[in-house]
């Protein structure tokens, strides 16, 4: 019995390896995916870095009333834009709404008169909150203005002989305990889905070809009239699919440390923590998912008529593992026993822990692998039942 499974498995792999188009698409994903991932990440990182030091030119209306403020801002890299052609605050608001400027600083016309009295001198910050690109700059200008105001206030209190500390009854100190690896884990959060997707895609062709494909090219009927139980045929095909998926996953993971190496994660005070050891551990975490993925794909393919039809359905199936991941990201859950029975979520939680360089209890890891494999066996049994139906012939 085991011989037939091995014969079927070997033949499916041989046929896949011979098909140049399939091999090309199988290799393209694992090699291009991590590069794409690295590019997206490096753009995200460089954007968050750039807004910190870069000199910023902002149209400032009425700044000539406040040369000290201008000098204070200039010391923080915020300069007035020379030619902006804006007349007043309304003009500026329209320009910001049109997207010509990210933000405009408008000093009240009574600014000079009010400054130095008990009345507050007013400054208006004009910006568009819906533009995420501008939010870093707005925050930077707002902080600079706040710092100036607090310095002036302090000086005034000192001049009146009052201790400025009276205004600070509570001192708030911040201590961020996230490790550099922890911070990058946040950014690598989409990694699990990326890897699951790559793995499922790797087995997609074989899963479809073994049922819908065989039926379409009319090789299923003679195959079923051989003295081999249908369950064995299914298991052989499933084994080939699982091997293909694991190879794809391995290739993707091998390419990842290389791609992540070129990420400028250190510039934002992060370390990726994605060496060969982590890659190997991630492989171990994700491997139990392969039989489940293969079984689900073969189950779906077994009741479709053609390759194309199966492909359409399976595109939706590829999205199913994301559902627990989306919940995990929204709810920010931690690994615990009550959650480790959910396939894809349990793998995600373990991978996040690995990237944060936190230990996952062995019992939780075993629970995750065990339940995922059990789900895989259950779905495979269901697929075998479908495979035994007469309508399999189509």
């Amino acid at each position, binding site marked *: 019995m085991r011989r037939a499974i091995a014969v079927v498995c070997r033949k499916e792999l041989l046929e896949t390896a011979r098909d140049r188009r399939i091999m090309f698409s199988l290799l393209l994903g694992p090699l291009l995916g991590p590069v794409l991932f690295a590019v997206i990440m490096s753009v995200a990182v460089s954007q968050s870095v750039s807004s910190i030091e870069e000199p910023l030119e902002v149209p400032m209306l009425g700044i000539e009333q406040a040369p000290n403020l201008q000098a204070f801002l200039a010391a923080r890299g915020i300069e007035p834009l020379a030619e902006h052609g804006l007349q007043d605050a309304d003009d500026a608001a329209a320009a910001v709404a049109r997207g010509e400027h990210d933000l405009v600083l408008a000093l009240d016309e009574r600014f000079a008169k009010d400054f130095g009295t008990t009345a507050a001198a007013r400054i208006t910050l004009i910006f568009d909150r819906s533009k995420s690109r501008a939010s870093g700059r707005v925050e930077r200008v707002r902080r600079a203005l706040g710092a100036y105001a607090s310095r002036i206030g302090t000086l005034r209190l000192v001049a009146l002989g009052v201790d400025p500390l009276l205004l600070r009854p509570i001192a708030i100190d911040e201590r961020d305990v996230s490790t550099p690896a922890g911070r990058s884990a946040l950014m690598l959060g989409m990694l699990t889905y990326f890897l699951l997707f790559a793995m499922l895609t790797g087995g997609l062709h074989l899963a479809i070809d073994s049922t819908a494909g065989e039926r379409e090219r009319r090789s299923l009927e*003679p195959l079923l009239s*051989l003295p081999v139980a249908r369950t064995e045929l299914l298991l052989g095909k499933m084994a080939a699919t699982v091997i293909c998926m694991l190879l794809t996953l391995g290739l993707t993971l091998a390419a990842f440390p290389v791609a992540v190496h070129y990420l400028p994660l250190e510039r934002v005070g992060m370390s990726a923590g994605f060496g060969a050891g982590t890659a190997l551990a991630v492989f171990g975490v994700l491997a139990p998912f392969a039989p489940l993925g293969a079984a689900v794909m073969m189950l779906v393919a077994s009741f479709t008529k053609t390759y194309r039809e199966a492909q359409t359905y399976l595109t939706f199936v590829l999205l199913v593992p994301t559902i627990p991941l989306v919940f995990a990201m929204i709810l920010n859950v931690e690994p615990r026993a009550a959650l480790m029975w959910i396939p894809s979520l349990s793998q995600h939680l373990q991978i996040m822990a690995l990237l944060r360089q936190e230990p996952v209890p062995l019992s939780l890891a075993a629970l995750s692998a065990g339940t995922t494999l059990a789900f895989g066996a259950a779905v495979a049994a269901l697929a075998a039942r479908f495979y035994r139906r007469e309508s399999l012939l189509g």
Partner: protein
Amino acid sequence: MIAVRGLSKRFGAVQALDAVTFDAADGEITGLLGPNGAGKSTCLRILSTVISADSGTATVGGIDVAADPLGVRRVLGVLPHSAGLYQQLTAAENIAYYGRLHGLPEPLLAKRVEELLDRLDLRAIAHRKAKGFSQGERTKVALARALVHDPKHLLLDEPTNGLDVMATRHLRDWLRELRDQGCCVLLSSHIMQEVEALVDRLVIIAGGRVVERGTPAELAARHPGRNLEEIFVAAVLGASRGAAA
């Protein structure tokens, strides 16, 4: 020897087979003749155990198809209607794959594949991928594949479909050769002339029922003055009138 007794099969509203009974003896070629949709393929599929009958029995070499399907498949070679090959495998690999699934040990398998390549004149394409094969080449490889385990019984569903004159002649020669070796050959067709040239015994089915059976000579004696095609047409028309009544 293939024995079919009162075989019935229904697909939804369609009665594909209605109490079909016939025998196909060893050392004979039996032709299952009928118009399209008469139930020929359904009958052959039940015999090759890929579907099961609603009622009635069928045995292949004395083995019951319902009780021991794996046993039946071991003594049976099947060439289904327009059987597909694996495009990325060569002719020899396609044949060997089936041999391995039949559980042939490797040395015997290698010998069998060589024999079949010679006998079916497949040497030239033995190590070419099946991708670009002509219909005739595909049918030959599929036949070799069905014969790899040297079965006593052979089922062929419309085997000459899509074959040119030369390929059809070759196929007939091989089938006669198999018969002479004592094989029980059961083939289906809807082309009277083809069957006439080849078969020893005829079973005509229409609308899922057997309407005529016997050797060509017996049929001619039963319907004097008519050729086989006229007998076939009359039998089929009679069956459809019977169904309408």
